[in-house]
């Protein structure tokens, strides 16, 4: 049984204008999240991913469908019961949402107070969390004295205070620069590895997904349009939206404009070779060109590593007498596409 089971979940908001259509923020999503995994939910603004996250901790009640977390169907629970469930689900936010009226210490103490943890135990837990996120020396500072990355670390410590099983990260790195983002991504990885906490990462940053997620669900118009392991999604994106997202970090296919430029300088036959882990190696492919006496020049492409596995597209220009024959041979080794 999965830790989080979404079954045909929908969330509709009342129409913006009188007589208008209701807004379907989440529209029939079925999704499982297993204990201990990191799931990335990707989509453009308004795709419904943040709403989906809020259905998982019932900050938003679902309009229909069922949301089962650790065996409990949240759609059947009363508010007081939901409050107990929420203590087992931490959440971090794009704008950090720290309490400005409280110090770093006070921020982390808050969820412990809510959970009724005795004061004597709070002390130890807070100090442990501050050390975990590397901010032990900032305990008595106020949020405005911290940098963005530090604020998000406090956010993580605060979300972990009540020892949740699940952590929801809602665009948690979107307000941070790339270097700080990497720091937070590394921290979330440690949260997952050291505490076994299941993490749902809502983001539009593919770099974050690539470095963090085990699996990815891509959303568009309130629906999950594609899901799979991070490697599969990056290596073989099927849906148009997925492809556009993957292209933001993997630029190994020449665009139409790039092709035009390449043509000017490379009059020979241009083909794109797709390498996958299960396909033949570059050594075999280039050896085949050599045997056929075909000249080849790498003109575009790159190799990527995702989840410790390699894939990539290489565009080559082929010249010589026996190009057709060589392409036939190579086609049996890897996927070959003509560049037009």
């Amino acid at each position: 049984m999965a830790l989080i089971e979404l079954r045909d979940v929908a969330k509709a908001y009342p129409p913006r204008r009188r007589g208008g259509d209701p807004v379907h923020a989440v529209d029939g999503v079925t999704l499982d999240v297993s204990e201990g995994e990191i799931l990335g939910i990707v989509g453009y603004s308004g795709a419904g991913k943040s709403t989906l996250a809020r259905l998982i901790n019932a900050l938003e009640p679902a309009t229909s469908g069922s949301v089962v977390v650790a065996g409990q169907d949240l759609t059947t629970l009363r508010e007081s019961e939901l409050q107990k469930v929420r203590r087992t689900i931490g959440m971090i936010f794009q704008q950090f949402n720290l309490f400005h009226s409280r110090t770093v210490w006070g921020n982390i103490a808050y969820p412990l107070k809510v959970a009724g943890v005795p004061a004597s135990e709070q002390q130890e837990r807070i100090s442990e969390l501050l050390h975990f996120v590397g901010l032990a020396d900032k305990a008595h500072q106020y949020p405005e004295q911290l940098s963005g990355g530090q604020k998000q670390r406090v956010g993580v410590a605060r979300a972990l205070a009540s020892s949740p099983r699940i952590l929801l990260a809602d665009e948690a790195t979107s307000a941070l620069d790339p270097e700080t983002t990497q720091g937070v991504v590394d921290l979330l990885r440690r949260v997952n590895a050291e505490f076994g906490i299941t993490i749902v990462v809502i983001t539009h940053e593919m770099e974050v997904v690539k470095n963090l997620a085990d699996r990815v669900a891509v959303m568009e118009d309130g629906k999950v349009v594609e899901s799979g392991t991070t490697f599969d999604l990056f290596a073989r994106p099927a849906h148009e939206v997925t492809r556009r997202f993957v292209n933001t970090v993997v630029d190994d296919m020449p665009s139409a404009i790039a092709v035009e430029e390449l043509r000017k300088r490379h009059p020979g036959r241009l083909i794109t070779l797709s390498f996958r882990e299960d396909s033949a190696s570059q050594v075999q492919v280039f050896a085949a060109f050599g045997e056929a006496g075909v000249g080849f020049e790498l003109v575009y492409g790159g190799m990527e590593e995702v989840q410790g596995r390699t894939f990539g597209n290489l565009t080559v220009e082929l010249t010589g007498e026996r190009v057709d024959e060589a392409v036939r041979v190579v086609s049996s080794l890897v996927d070959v596409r003509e560049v037009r």
Partner: protein
Amino acid sequence: MDRVFELSGLLGTATVETIVLSAVGLTIGGIFGLTIGTALYVTRKGGLMANAPVNVVLNVMVNFFRPIPFILLAIGLQGLVREVFGTGIGNTAAMPIVVFAATFGIARIVEQNLVSVSPGVLEAARSMGASRLRVIFTVLLPEAFGPLILGFTFAFIAIVDMIAVVGVIGAGGLGNFALQYGYRQFNPWVTWTAILIVIVIVQIGQFAGNAAARKVLRR
């Protein structure tokens, strides 16, 4: 000028009356106003306890009473105050009327100050399993504390202003003193002495409010 010294006893009484009336108005009106203002904010659409009927009723109440010029409210409420408190004149009658006017004025100020709190912070507290009431008392109000102090400072000055006219129903205070012994007896020295004391009271209130807000806002 000599007249001012002759009246110093009465002036002292009037000063104390203004201070007591404004302190009572600010405290009791402040508590009621904070309650109504918070209710106005949380019952808004999309609010922590969104409730359209309650919000509409509160809004209509505030919009009904708040624009009434205080001097008209004082005479208008006199009958009701006489029924409830046994007298329609003097400081005893002025007190509930000042509290009433302060309540609705402060309610709107409180509501506007609470808007400055980021909804995300409230959501964060809710995501930790805090109940809605708990969020109001431990997050919403503390987060808005700085602006609320400034709002209450503003309200205090408005209340001092109101008290200047409670003489109309026979209550005391510096306003009444200035009218009675300054204006009607053609003695600008007396008028201006009373005015100066009002200015000093307002200045002290403003200074204390600013200092407290600076401390809370840490700047």
